[in-house]
C-alpha cells in the first residue's frame, strides 16, 4: 500500500488497541451478547464496582434497535461499534491521555475544534451514573467521557473513568467521508476495497425491518419474562455473571419491543424498573461475593 493511502477503519482499531495495550490495559474481546453500549459489558459494569484496579479496552458492537433507519440515514444505524476504555482508578490526567490517543490514530487535533461539553451520563436501567462530557469534534460528538460515581445503585469507592469512542464518527473525520457506509474498512483503493457499506449495509436494512416491522412480539415478551425469572433465580445461586447476562438479554428484548412500538409510556417505565431491579441485584451480589473473597 502506498504512503498517502487513507487510514482504514480496521487500522484505526488496531492503533487504538496498540495505544491502550501500551498504556497497560488488558485488551479484551467484545461481549458476545447483544448490548446497547460498551458500558453493559461485564468488563465495565461489574468490574467497575469495588476496590482494586482494572484497566481494560475493547471494541464493542452495539445494538440500538430504535436508531435503525433502513440504511437510509448516513449517520444513524441500529448497529455500530464503540471502542471502550475503562481505567480504574482514573489516572491523573485522563483527558490528555485521551487526546494523545487521538493523535495516535492519526487524528489531527490541531486542525479541529475539540471540546469537552458537559454531558453527565446516566443509565437508569443499570443504576449507573457518572459525571463527564461528550467530546465534540467540529460540533460532532465523537466520544463519551465519564467519571463513574455510582454503579448498580452503589457509590464507587474508587472512581473509574470510562472513555467510549464512536468509531464510525471518528473514521468519517479521519477519512473525510460523508456517510458511515462510505468508510473504507480494509484500506484498499483497488477493486478489492471493502467499505463499511459492503460489510454492513444489508445487515442494517434487514435488522431495521426486523426491529421495526417483523420481530415476533409474543416471542420477545415471553423471552423477556424468561430472562427475568432466570436472572433472579441465578442470583440466589450466587452465579452473578450468568445472572447478569440474563439481565443484558432481557434489556435487549425490551429494546426491540420498544422499537416495534408496542411499549406504551407507562409500560416502558414498568419494564425499565424491572431491568433496573435485575441489574441492581446483580451488582449488589457481585460486590458481596467480592467482599467474601480473601
Amino acid at each position: 500500500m502506498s504512503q498517502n493511502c487513507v487510514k482504514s477503519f480496521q487500522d484505526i482499531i488496531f492503533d487504538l488497541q496498540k495505544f491502550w495495550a501500551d498504556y497497560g490495559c488488558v485488551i479484551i474481546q467484545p461481549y458476545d451478547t447483544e448490548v446497547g453500549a460498551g458500558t453493559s459489558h461485564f468488563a465495565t459494569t461489574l468490574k467497575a464496582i469495588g476496590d482494586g484496579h482494572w484497566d481494560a479496552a475493547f471494541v464493542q458492537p452495539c445494538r440500538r434497535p430504535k436508531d435503525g433507519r433502513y440504511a437510509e440515514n448516513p449517520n444513524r444505524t441500529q448497529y455500530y461499534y464503540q471502542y471502550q476504555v475503562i481505567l480504574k482508578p482514573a489516572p491523573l490526567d485522563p483527558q490528555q491521555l485521551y487526546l494523545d490517543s487521538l493523535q495516535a490514530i492519526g487524528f489531527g487535533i490541531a486542525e479541529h475544534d475539540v471540546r469537552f461539553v458537559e454531558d453527565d451520563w446516566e443509565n437508569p436501567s443499570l443504576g449507573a451514573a457518572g459525571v463527564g462530557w461528550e467530546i465534540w469534534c467540529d460540533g460532532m460528538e465523537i466520544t463519551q467521557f465519564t467519571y463513574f460515581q455510582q454503579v448498580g445503585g452503589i457509590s464507587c469507592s474508587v472512581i473509574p473513568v470510562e472513555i467510549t469512542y464512536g468509531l464510525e464518527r471518528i473514521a468519517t473525520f479521519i477519512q473525510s467521508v460523508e456517510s458511515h457506509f462510505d468508510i473504507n474498512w480494509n484500506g484498499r483503493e483497488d477493486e478489492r476495497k471493502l467499505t463499511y457499506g459492503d460489510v454492513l449495509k444489508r445487515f442494517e436494512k434487514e435488522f431495521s425491518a426486523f426491529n421495526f416491522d417483523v420481530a415476533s412480539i409474543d416471542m420477545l415478551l415471553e423471552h423477556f419474562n424468561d430472562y427475568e425469572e432466570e436472572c433472579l433465580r441465578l442470583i440466589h445461586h450466587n452465579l452473578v455473571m450468568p445472572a447478569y447476562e440474563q439481565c443484558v438479554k432481557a434489556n435487549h428484548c425490551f429494546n426491540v419491543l420498544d422499537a416495534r412500538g408496542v411499549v406504551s409510556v407507562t409500560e416502558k417505565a414498568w419494564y425499565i424498573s424491572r431491568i433496573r431491579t435485575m441489574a441492581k441485584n446483580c451488582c449488589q451480589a457481585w460486590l458481596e461475593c467480592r467482599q467474601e473473597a480473601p
Partner: protein
Amino acid sequence: MQKEFLLEILSEEIPSRFQRDALSNASTVFTKILNDYCTKFSSVSTYISSRRLTVVVKYLIKKFDNVPEEKRGPKVSAPERSIEGFLNANGKQRDDLIVRNGYYYLQVETHSDDIEDLIPLFIRDFILKMPWPKSMRWYISSQKMLSAFWVRPIRSILCIYDDGPVNAFIESVGLTTCDYTYGHRFLAPDPIKVSDFEDYENKLKENYVLIDYRKKMSFIDRELLQRVAAIGLHLSNDDELLEESTGLVEYPFVHVGTIDTEFMKLPAPVLSTAMKVHQKYFSVEYPELILAPFFGTVTNVPGTDVMYEGMNRVLKARLSDAMFFYKADIDVTLEAFAQRLSNIVFHEKLGSMAQKVDRMMSIANSKDEHRAVALCKADLLSQLVGEFPELQGTMGGIYAKIQDESANVATAIREHYKPTGANDVLPDSFTGSRISFFDKLDTLVGFLGMGITPSGSKDPFALRRSALCIIRLLCDSEFNVLEEDNLSWYVTTLINAFSDQGVALYPDTLENVHKFLISRLKIYMTDKLMINQEVMESVISSFDSVDFSYKDAVAKSKKLSKSLARAGFGTIKEALKRTLGIIGKETPENFDENIDFLDSHMKNLKNHIEVCQNIHDESEFFSSIVRISEIVLETCENVLINDPDPDLRDKNASLLCRFVKLVQDNIGIV
C-alpha cells in the same frame, strides 16, 4: 500588588450552564470565609472560564495587629469572685493588675492569625463550601482516598499573596498550591509563572484565555454581529445560546458557515432548533427576519478548512435526520397522531393525554375551540417533537397549516403552551389564549384534586407555574379568557369531566383550586407587580366572592398604590368615610345632572365635580379630587345632608353619591 490575594483553581472543563452563577456564589462564599477568619480586605472579585475559577482579594490583611491593649475589669471594691473571674478569663496573675480611677485594668494582647497561616484554611474551606449544582469526587492515588467534592477534577491550584507564591498542601484534593498556571488547552499548554492578578490576566490573555466572562460574552456577540452584518444579514438574538457559547471556550473564534439550500425547505423553527440544540449554532436572518442559509458559531481554536468541512458534514447529518422526521411526520395526519394519545400517560392517577383532551373539550365552546383542543396535543406523537421536545405546539401549528386547518385553529395549536412562565409572551390569539387556559386549568384541577400540592421547594409538576400562567392569562391578556362564565364554572365542569372518566377528585377541590390560585395571585401582585402587601390585602379582601375578576383586583391595587403615594390621599379617604357614614353604603346609581342647588356649599361641590371630569392630566385630576374632598368635608360640617324634606335629602345624597363613585372609580379606595 501589595497585600493582594490571588487564587485560581484549575480543573477539567466546568459545565457552561454553571459558570455565571458560580461567579456570584464564589464571591459570596469567599467573602464569608474571610469574615469568619477575622480578616480585613477592600474587595473580593471572581472570574471564570471553562477550566478555571479565580478569586482575587484586594488588600487582604489581618483585622488587627497583636498590640497590647488595656482591658478594664471590675471596681476595686468588687467582690473577690469577680476579680478572680477577670484574671482567669484573661490568663493573668494578681500581680498583673493595674489600679486606676477605682477600677482594675489588665494589659492584654489580642490575637489575630497571620494571613499566611490562614491561606491554606481559606482554600480548604472554599473547596468545601463552594456550591455547585452538581459535583463529583475523584480518586487521589497518592493518598489512596477520594477527593473532596468539586465540579470536575481539580488539576492545579495557583496561589499568590502579597506578590509572593504560597505553597500550601491542600489535603482534600491532594495538591500543593504554586505560582504558575496553564494557558489554553490546545494553543498554550505550557506552565505560566504569575506574579500578581494584573500579570495573571495579561499573561492568560496572551496565552488565549479570557478570564472575564462578561467581556468574553460581549466579544463573541460583537464579532458575530459584525461577521453577519458584513454579508448584509442579522444574527437572530439568543441570549441563552450566547451564554452557553461563552462558557464553552477559553478564547472565542467566530465563524459564519453556510447551510445547504436543500435544508431551507425545513420549517424555520425546526432548522434553528436543530442547529441550536445539537450544534449550538446561531441562526442568521435576512433583514426581513426570514431565516438565511447561514449559521454563526464559536470555536475554541482558530478555524481551518478541515474544521469547516467537518462542521458542514455534521450539520448536514443533523439536518438530514430532521428532514427524515419531518417528511415522515407530514405523511401522517394530526387526527392519526391524536388517536394514539391514549398511549401517552399524562399522570398515572389522572389518565392519558387523550383523557386530558376530552376534559379540555368539556369546557371548550366554539367550533374552532373544539377543533383546536382535539388536535393540540397530537404533535406529541410526531417524530420531530420526539427528537426536539421544545418544538411541541410549534410543530402542531405547522402540521395543522399543512393539512389546511383554519388559520385560527393552527395558531391556537401553536400558541397553546404560552405563556410558559413569568417572562414568556402571552398568546396573540383569543382561541390560543383560551386553549392555553383550558390546558393549565385542567392540570391544576387534576393535581390539586388528587391532593398533590407543592410544598417548599418541591413542585415536581410545576403547579405554581401553571397557576402563574393562568393568572397572567386572566390579568394581562387583552382577551376575556373566561367569556361569559366564572372561574368556578370552569373548575366544576372539569371536576365533573374527571368524574365521568372515573377519576374521583377530593370533594373540596373547587375550594382548593380557588385558594391556591388566590394565594398565587397575591404573590404575583406583591412580588412581580410590586404592589404593597397592605394594598393588595385590602383590595382582595374587599371582594365578597372567590369569583372576583383578577384583572380588576390588579387594576384597583395599582390605582390605589398610585393614589397612596400622592399628597392629599388622607383627605380623600376621610371625605369618603364621612360621606358613606352619612348616606349609607347603598348608593343610588342614577344622578340627575340637571338638579340645581340653592345651598352655596352644594352648588360649589357640584361645579367642582363637573369641572373635575374634564381634566385629563393625571396629577391635576388627583389634585382636583383632593380639593373636592375638602369641599365635601366642609359641606358635611355646614349642611344637613339628611334634610327632613325627603326631596332635598335625596338631592343631597345623590350629589354625594356622585362623589363616592368618582373616588371609587378613579382612586382605587375600596
